[in-house]
């Protein structure tokens, strides 16, 4: 019983949710209950989740703004797509997929290091503009490439994986992405990363190698953006460089922000919802009405950011947030615990040495610095 309780189920909830989601739809697709458009939507959702989670590492946990995430995806899509197109006749479907995923991810990761290096010298707004510039450079270069190399303005034709299975592979990769990201964030290194977000100078002063961690985050984040790019190239017949403009980077950023900064679950939910709405609204709102969708997104984005961040609304937010709402319904809120109620029969009699020696890091209650720290700057 005690070992069952010691597993932090909260930490595995999103794996289980994503896996269950995948299994349900995999079964549905095997039974034949899914239309081609639904499968395409599932592929898009997986790609969006991967992009949002990887961007969330940079924006939500490292605290640096990146406006070039679509650029990393673009690199992965083109390199992976090209590799796939070349290797497909030679090696067959599955080895090609694996190799092109690796190639796309690795090249994007290398670009992540290249962009991460200036990130060490620049902060905040300056870094945002450099990543934006990077995304536009990548796009321009691919757009003007010769038709033999990367297809140029006509787009690069890519092979398409068996359409019933690509979304399953994509979701398995999402699980992998979640595993890497969450294990990194919940480890000692993750604490170092969030401490850089909260106060870089203080983090440096406590002996954290800021350079190393920034590079790690940029590399991992761009690796997964590259993987998402390869998936994108598999899910579409051709890759057009115009699809990777900075508007797309911002769309990913919107997912991260709507989901809540520094919340991976939030990113997953927001990515799923936005992609779902995107696809569904595209079929409902046609012609001139299509722009209404953008209008709503813009309004929702502004309202949510103001609601979540406005200093004047702080009191209102604290009085009406989700956690307090749930606490009202809980029988045992912290005030009701008395010493007498401690259940003595559940005190373990045997000491587990592993538990004594290990350090338990509580991720569920993250450290929140005083607001006064920031105002001094």
């Amino acid at each position: 019983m005690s070992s069952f309780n010691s597993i932090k189920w909260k930490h595995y909830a999103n794996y289980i949710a994503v896996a269950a989601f995948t299994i349900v739809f995999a079964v549905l697709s095997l039974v034949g209950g899914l239309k081609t458009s639904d499968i395409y939507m599932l592929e898009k959702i997986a790609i969006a989740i991967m992009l949002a989670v990887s961007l969330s590492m940079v924006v939500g946990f490292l605290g640096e703004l990146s406006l070039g995430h679509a650029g990393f995806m673009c690199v992965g899509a083109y390199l992976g797509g090209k590799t796939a197109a070349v290797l497909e006749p030679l090696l067959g479907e599955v080895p090609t997929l694996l190799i092109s995923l690796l190639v796309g991810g690795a090249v994007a990761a290398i670009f992540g290091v290249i962009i991460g290096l200036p990130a060490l010298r620049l902060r905040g707004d300056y870094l945002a503009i450099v990543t934006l510039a990077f995304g536009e450079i990548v796009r321009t270069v691919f757009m003007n490439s010769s038709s033999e190399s990367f297809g140029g303005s006509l787009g690069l034709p890519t092979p398409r994986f068996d359409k019933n299975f690509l979304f399953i592979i994509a979701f398995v990769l999402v699980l992998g992405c979640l595993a890497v990201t969450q294990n990194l964030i919940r480890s000692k290194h993750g604490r170092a990363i969030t401490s850089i977000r909260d106060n870089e100078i203080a983090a440096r002063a406590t002996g954290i190698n800021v350079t190393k961690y920034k590079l790690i985050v940029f590399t991992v984040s761009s690796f997964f953006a590259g993987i998402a790019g390869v998936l994108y190239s598999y899910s579409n017949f051709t890759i057009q460089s115009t699809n990777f403009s900075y508007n797309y980077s911002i769309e990913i950023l919107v997912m991260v922000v709507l989901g809540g900064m520094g919340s991976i679950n939030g990113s997953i939910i927001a990515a799923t919802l936005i992609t779902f709405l995107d696809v569904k609204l595209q079929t409902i709102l046609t012609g001139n009405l299509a722009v209404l969708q953008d209008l709503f997104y813009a309004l929702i984005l502004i309202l949510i950011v103001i609601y979540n961040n406005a200093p004047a609304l702080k009191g209102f937010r604290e009085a009406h947030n989700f956690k307090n709402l749930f606490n009202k319904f809980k029988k045992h809120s912290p005030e009701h615990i008395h010493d007498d109620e401690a259940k003595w029969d559940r005190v373990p009699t045997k000491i587990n040495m592993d538990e004594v020696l290990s350090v338990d890091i509580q991720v569920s209650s993250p450290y929140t610095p005083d607001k006064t720290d920031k105002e001094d700057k």
Partner: protein
Amino acid sequence: MKFIETLINGLSMGSTYAMIALGYTMVYGIAKMLNFAHGDVIMVGGYMIFVTMASLGNPILGLLAAVVFCVALGVTIEKIAYKPLRGASPLAVLITAIGVSYLLQSTAQIIFGSAPKMVNVADLGNVKFAGLTVPVYILVTLGCSMVIMLVLSVFVKYTKTGRAMIAVSEDKGAAQLMGINVNKIIMITFAIGSALAAFAGFFMLMKSPSLNNTLGAMPGIKAFTAAVIGGIGSIPGAMLGGMLMGVVEAISLTIPAIAPYTDAIEFLILIVILLVRPTGILGKKRREKV
């Protein structure tokens, strides 16, 4: 000769960029935020010129209407979207600005449709002197923006309001203690930036008459890049960066081999300059304190 023509063209493009960059840099200097929606104010100004010209037929009246409307718009945006977030994290403000940018673009599309509108501001023809053939609109753009920038520099340096702006950009808290109404100064800054954007929209329509809801997006980003190259927060820096950007763009567009890569070259210059000087050419170094 060809080179001098290119250079004049570049300076004219650069002065348009500089006008937009001034809006970015002044707002950054004073409100410490990147106003991503600034490029779209240009677009709104463009549509205002279109509407006025369609009803009254006079480009100058169109420009005036655009300036008035953009000033009102800029101040309203600041009041509704940015003011509640004063004191919040810079990222939150930036994302709101992105939201405002999308809001303006989609509203314009709802009102005017997605098909481009043609706005023939004025056909001024060409002028020839000393073996050079230069379109008149280039000279008008160059002349007007020079005058505007000169007036702006004088305004900031020698008037009470201008000095108050400098004071707020140096230290908001101290400025407030000296009796400066910070909110009013920020409002004035947004008003000036938006007025400059309306002028920039007018110059852009003189250059090419096609107007749609993304008119300001790319020039906005490039002008923002120019502001960062010059050193964001610095008014001479924005002018210098804008001019540099325009000249590079004009030269690059005349060389067939690199013309398609013009955008990439401009952004590459930004990255290189930021690597050498992380705060831009004329930017001040700021010591970070814990």
